């Protein structure tokens, strides 16, 4: 086909050096309505295509036996060209009379909405494209809605493929009315509505005779009317901490200013914890010769500062002006979009990110859920993929945030699910500040436990472990005491390749055989088991008060010893963990018979898996033999259950398995306090 000459010549050098405003524009709209074509055409009309590009596009089109396709300029992937569809977002630059323009292409297909959002989130303004023949379609509506949610408020509309409707002004007017009604309903204000043929160029850079009835701006003129983003310098200071670097004697707090300004001498407050300090210096590298060091910095700048006193500051903390501090919340309401295949539901657990901070969260309530692609959106109870809704999220750790209305940057949340970004949204309101440490949602935890407990019954031990790892978000810890059950679990973990931390609580009173087995196990699997020790100060105090073997004297003394040597170290081993695997078996004692495969340890806020719970001793012995797993030689000498050396004896045939533990105490009281009930209280012994 014949291609017209570029209409706008390259800009003169004279104003090239002058700083020019940059505006970033995303092109959105339903699949195949002509987004990529418009971009190709704009680049051509402004004379921005490099030498040889047009010939390349012709060749690429000819190779595929299609008429000339402008979309191939940005649809660079082979699958995109072969299928004639944009898969991932792309960017290209050109210059108009007044502006440096960054055009962002977005895919229109619903399957690639995550890529559309990736592109549109970077934009200051948007061009929404509608096919004149097809009119407003699902993705037109969905994209319009998302622009609003992403905070893109400047929107121009183009009615494309006007050639396909015979340049009919009436058709243009009716599509125009349709899209205007929809967008104004969302609260978006619309700039120009322009009839174009992206393929042929009408309305792109010039008003042609074919659309002689139209006297509004061309696409290029509309672009010159779009504004670059405002700077957030007038808002209160918000500085999310990225890291603290130790340079020489200084601790430099590094981050990028989200809003406001910071000056030497400013009083600041660090959240969480509301610790206060004053800004001592603003650091820079390299030191400027002959110039004083910087004394202030503003929104958008990546900086480093030092404080006038030693505070504990770390990544994820937020520095704000003392006069206008940020609040730190444990619960927030947000309007979100959701991109994951699994629907967002009440009880869904995810990671919430704001600035550089992150916290685990659980969806407490879904207040509204709609499909923005539909004309009449029926509200739902869950938010399926590519839908939006308003939700209430409970956080496990407090996060510092502002409502989006007050501070756009600090009021944006990103939702991560299964280690990948799966959604995002705007903070609508926050609940009043609460105590710094908030237990996780106990109801949700108990529900999860009940559900998994049912599902896991039919599974093998190995499958239980695998499913547990998939279900639990966050760190999982397996605590071993090197008994035969624990050795089997360690084997299953290491051979499955699961990334689970194995920890052993070294009470200091183990049998020598236990240490030998510990070393042998590490050698055999080439792995390290994390050793956790009692606190040296508590242990000294304990031994001083009750003597080195004081636990024989009374049950209270024994429990005190167990507390210092096992229970307290365990709480450190499990600190921050969301899953705990143990080797408890129902057959070990009467009360262990009542345990569940998966239980909620609400006291510690985690799910506990006992993968071998319903296995018999003989079954386990057989599995250990087959896999040639190293075990403690004491098992063969009458020690089925091995604890600390002074507190464990061999048992006679016929005695219960744990009869040799604290043999001087009653059978029904023999727990050390490691395993809590669902209510979080220690079991009554």
């Amino acid at each position, binding site marked *: 086909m014949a291609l017209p000459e570029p209409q706008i010549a390259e800009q003169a050098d004279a104003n090239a050096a002058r700083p020019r405003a940059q505006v970033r524009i995303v092109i959105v709209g339903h699949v195949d309505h002509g987004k990529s074509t418009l971009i190709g055409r704009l680049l051509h009309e402004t004379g921005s295509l490099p*030498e040889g590009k047009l010939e390349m596009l012709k060749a690429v089109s000819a190779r595929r036996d299609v008429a000339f396709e402008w979309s191939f300029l*940005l649809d660079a992937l082979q*699958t995109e060209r072969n299928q004639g569809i944009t898969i991932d977002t792309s960017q290209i630059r050109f210059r108009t009379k007044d502006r440096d323009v960054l055009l962002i292409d977005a895919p229109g297909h619903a399957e690639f909405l995550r890529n559309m959002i*990736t592109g549109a989130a970077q934009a200051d303004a948007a061009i929404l494209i509608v096919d004149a023949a097809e009119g407003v379609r699902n993705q037109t509506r969905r994209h319009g809605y998302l622009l609003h949610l992403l905070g893109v408020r400047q929107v121009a509309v183009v009615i494309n493929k006007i050639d396909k409707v015979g340049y009919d002004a009436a058709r243009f007017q009716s599509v125009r009315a349709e899209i205007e009604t929809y967008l104004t309903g969302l609260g978006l204000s619309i700039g120009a509505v322009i009839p174009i043929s992206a393929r042929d160029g009408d309305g792109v850079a010039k008003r042609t005779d074919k659309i002689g009835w139209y006297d509004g701006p061309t696409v290029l003129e509309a672009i010159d009317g779009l504004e670059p983003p405002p700077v957030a310098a007038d808002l209160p200071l918000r500085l999310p901490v*990225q*890291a603290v670097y130790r*340079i020489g004697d200084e601790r430099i707090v590094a981050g990028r200013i989200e809003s406001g300004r910071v000056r030497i001498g400013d009083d600041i407050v660090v959240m969480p914890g509301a610790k206060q300090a004053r800004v001592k210096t603003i650091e*820079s590298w390299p030191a400027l010769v002959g110039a004083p060091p910087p004394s202030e910095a503003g929104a958008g700048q990546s900086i480093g500062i030092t404080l006038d006193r030693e505070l504990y500051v770390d990544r994820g903390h937020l520095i704000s002006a003392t006069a206008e501090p940020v609040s730190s919340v444990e619960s927030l309401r947000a309007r979100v979009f959701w991109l994951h295949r699994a629907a967002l539901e009440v009880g869904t657990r995810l990671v919430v990110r704001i600035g550089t901070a992150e916290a685990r969260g659980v969806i407490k309530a879904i207040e509204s859920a709609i499909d923005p692609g539909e004309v009449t959106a029926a509200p739902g109870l869950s938010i399926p993929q590519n839908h939006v809704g308003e939700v209430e999220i409970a956080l496990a750790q407090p996060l510092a945030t502002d409502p989006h209305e007050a501070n756009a940057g600090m009021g*944006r949340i990103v939702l991560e699910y299964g280690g990948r970004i799966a959604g995002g949204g705007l903070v609508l309101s926050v609940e009043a500040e609460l105590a710094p440490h908030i237990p996780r949602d106990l109801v949700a935890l108990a529900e999860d436990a009940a559900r998994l407990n049912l599902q896991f019954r039919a599974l093998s031990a190995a499958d239980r472990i695998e499913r547990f790892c998939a279900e639990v978000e966050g760190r999982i810890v397996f605590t071993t005491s090197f008994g035969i059950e624990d050795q089997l679990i360690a084997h299953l973990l290491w051979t499955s390749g699961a*990334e689970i931390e194995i920890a052993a609580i070294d009470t200091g009173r183990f049998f020598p055989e236990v240490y030998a087995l510990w070393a042998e196990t590490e050698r055999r699997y080439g792995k390290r088991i994390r050793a956790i020790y009692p606190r040296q100060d508590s242990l000294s105090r304990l031994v001083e008060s009750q003597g080195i073997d004081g636990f024989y004297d009374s049950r209270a003394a024994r429990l005190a010893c167990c507390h210092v040597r096992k229970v307290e170290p365990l709480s450190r081993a499990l600190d921050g963990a969301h899953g705990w695997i143990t080797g408890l078996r129902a057959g070990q004692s009467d009360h262990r018979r009542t345990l569940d495969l998966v239980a909620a340890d609400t006291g510690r806020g985690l799910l506990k898996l006992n993968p071998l719970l319903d296995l018999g001793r003989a079954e386990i012995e057989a599995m250990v033999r087959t896999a040639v797993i190293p075990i403690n030689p004491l098992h063969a000498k009458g020690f089925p259950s091995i604890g600390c050396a002074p507190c464990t004896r061999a048992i006679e045939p016929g005695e219960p398995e744990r009869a040799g533990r604290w043999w001087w105490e009653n059978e029904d009281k023999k727990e050390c306090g490691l395993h809590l009930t669902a209510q979080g209280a220690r079991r009554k012994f």
Partner: protein
Amino acid sequence: MTRLDDLESQSIFVLREAYARLKNIALLWSLGKDSNVMIWLARKAFFGRVPFPALHVDTGKKFPEMYAFRERYAKEWNLDLQVEPCPPIETVDPTLPPAARSAARKTEGLKAALAKHGFDGLIAGIRRDEEATRAKERVFSLRGAEGIWDVRDQAPEFWNHFNASPPPGAHLRIHPILQWTEADIWAYTQREAIPIIPLYLSRDGKRYRSLGDMDITHPIPSQAATVAEILTELRTTKVSERAGRAMDHESEDAFERLRVAGYL
């Protein structure tokens, strides 16, 4: 803030995110103008000292000026320089056209370095304006086992939040200067007085716009003998930056295939 200040701050933010969120990273130092800017940005981000290795995946076919530059500035900038040689050409996919095949050696070298050091992140100085598949990149871009780029399934990335949890065996490519243009790189190089390899400047009417292997990189006709003159030249040129890189032009999909297989 000026455009360069804005770009600088964004790149520093990305470098600090990479260092904070990943365990074992390196910066790919190709010795070219882009990676020199990146090293400069890293020194700014971390106040003078780059806290991770600078990895040069060495095809052995670079210009002598490049090796001289490497030796000098590794020392002067106090870098933890790691050089990874590339395997012989015979080990590289023979179905690739010659120049692409030659370039793919670098991918093999990269894989060897990943295996040796166990990096979970590599900082690379690619830019969107260089090439159309690079324009589709994320700032934090996942490479699966074997270094594969799954362009059909890139994770969403927005509002300066990055996906930084590579599954075992995978790694991330971090692209701190993805948003910069060729002109930005030169304007910043000029503003900050960052050293460059003299091959970028015109000699006898020719200069290199992009530096790769000696046998597959060609100079362009140019009179630009200073960085300022390069900037002037870029304002009017209609020739694309990688025009002198043979591997981009051998077939329509050559570069995409290289990139999918783990090339930069």
